[in-house]
């Protein structure tokens, strides 16, 4: 069987397929559908220092080939995560990456400090890109200075691999990726959701109580792919691609443009087995073409087309 293992800095993944934060709960929710040990990594729902209740409903609406959400970073808080959610994940061999966010830089620092001393946490994903709360990250994600500042401060307090999750709601995402790299990030992941909205024409109100929300699902995939392609050209650290990936074909597009790994997100809502389907599809793709190692595919885009 072909080698499917990839490395994100010091983090070794059995295959390049991770879950996307906010779409896979804390892992246990999918236990009946997916053997977590078959995944490259599990990225859990974003955590803050204290629990957050989230936004009032309605919080989601389906849109063409995707959905808008304005959950508002509802989460149990880092203490409850460690006490109540992590023990379940520790039963598995799969690397656990914890997505963190804060309203102040100090909050990111504290979270990184606490999680660095916690057994069973294998990496941190810094969320500087949630569009749905006033200070929930995006405030830091739209300027290279603040992306760099948050990354640097987290880097200083942790030995864990640090992945910075970037927002597409900026003029040039490659600039943000460059800032994360210079500040010591081990990898970047992109894209988070694209800000959007939708209106109920009968009642003339927004479908979401928050008015705007984050667009995800297959609708965003070409945008995400283009941004990953841009960022790969700009930075030397590994790039993790996400945005609308639902099948192995989708994932392979990201790998070919240079992503070292991918995350499957909204697709898990439509098909709880989506992550596993992508893993198995990549394995089949390699086997059918006699490719011995998934790394032989990564970054092999032939931009000139048929040569």
């Amino acid at each position, binding site marked *: 069987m072909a080698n499917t293992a990839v490395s994100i800095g010091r983090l070794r993944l059995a295959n390049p397929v991770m879950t996307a934060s906010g779409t896979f709960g804390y892992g246990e929710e999918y236990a009946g559908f997916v053997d977590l040990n078959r995944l490259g990594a599990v990225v859990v729902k974003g955590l803050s220092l204290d629990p957050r209740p*989230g936004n009032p*409903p309605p*919080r*989601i609406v*389906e849109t063409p080939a995707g959905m808008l*959400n304005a959950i508002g970073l509802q989460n149990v808080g880092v203490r409850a995560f460690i006490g109540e959610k992590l023990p379940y994940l520790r039963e598995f061999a799969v690397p656990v990456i914890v997505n963190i966010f804060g309203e102040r830089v100090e909050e990111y620092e504290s979270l990184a400090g606490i999680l660095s001393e916690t057994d069973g946490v294998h990496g941190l994903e810094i969320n500087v890109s949630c569009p749905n709360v006033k200070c929930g990250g995006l405030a830091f994600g739209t300027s290279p200075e603040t992306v760099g500042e948050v990354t640097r401060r987290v880097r200083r307090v942790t030995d864990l691999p640090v992945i910075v999750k970037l927002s597409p709601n900026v003029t040039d995402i490659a600039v943000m990726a460059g800032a994360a790299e210079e500040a010591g990030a081990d990898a970047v992941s992109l894209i988070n959701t694209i800000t959007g909205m939708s209106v109920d024409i009968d009642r003339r109100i927004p479908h979401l109580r928050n008015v705007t929300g984050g667009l995800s699902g297959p609708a965003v995939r070409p945008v995400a792919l283009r941004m990953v392609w841009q960022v790969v050209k700009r930075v030397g650290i590994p790039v993790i691609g996400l945005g609308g990936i639902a099948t192995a074909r989708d994932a392979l597009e990201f790998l070919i443009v240079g992503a070292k790994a991918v995350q499957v997100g909204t697709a898990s809502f439509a098909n709880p087995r989506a992550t596993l389907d992508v893993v198995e599809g990549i394995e089949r793709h390699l086997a059918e073409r006699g490719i011995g190692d998934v790394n032989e595919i990564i970054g092999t885009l032939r931009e000139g087309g048929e040569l």
Partner: protein
Amino acid sequence: MDRIGEAAQVKAVVRSNTEIAPAHFEMTLEAQGAFRRPEAGQFVMVRIADGEVFLPRPFSVCCWEKAVSPRLKILYRVVGRGTGGLSRLGSGRTVDLTGPFGRGFSMPGDGRDVVLLGGGIGMAPLLSLLDRCRETGGPRSGRIAVYAGARTASLLIGTARAAECGAALRISTDDGSDGFHGPVTERFARERGEWDEKKTSLYACGPRPMLQSLQGLLKGSPAICEASLEERMACGLGACLGCAVAVRDGAGNRVFRRVCKEGPVFPLQDIFWE
């Protein structure tokens, strides 16, 4: 007794899809694989395989048969693209079926009277509870009444099934075309003297104004009332956090709970209306 939990994902074949009232359908799905029988009030997610609709949709299971393969029935009203697409599926078509999900109704204790209040398509989860009551022979010695309401007579749902199950049927319509002329809750309000509320379990499902008015009626009553709620959801299994509803927790705080996981059934008095 089947256990709660252990959801499955299977293909299911549409065996029938009948318009039982204007824009209201009853669909029979045959699971192509092991599928656990839902508890009364639990729901399933249905997705049209390779359809134009991206997300699955949640439906209460109103009826269950185990012939050769498990068969379940859902009732739905066409309100948008998801249910519209579903309504056009003919027999033999395949859908993705996942579930069963959520926390259903608590079964009434022995000797308790049971009152079900259903508004329109809200009868669906109540029918599954009636089925269970009939099967378990319970509530022993208690009476069962079904208050079924709709805008008009042609939109009354599940009344024949309720009668078959041996429940006393009490119909209301907003336009007076059948039964009591007015909301289902008003009929119940007028007749509630017939029930010893200390020994009555109520179960309700329907439009939010109906549930809200019932909550008002029952304020301070010793009756136990559970309500099944509906909310837009993406995953159905507790991950997307899209289906939040504000409820009172054990300590009296206002908190968000997931309709898909902690619900869809909640104690009526705990629900906050936005």
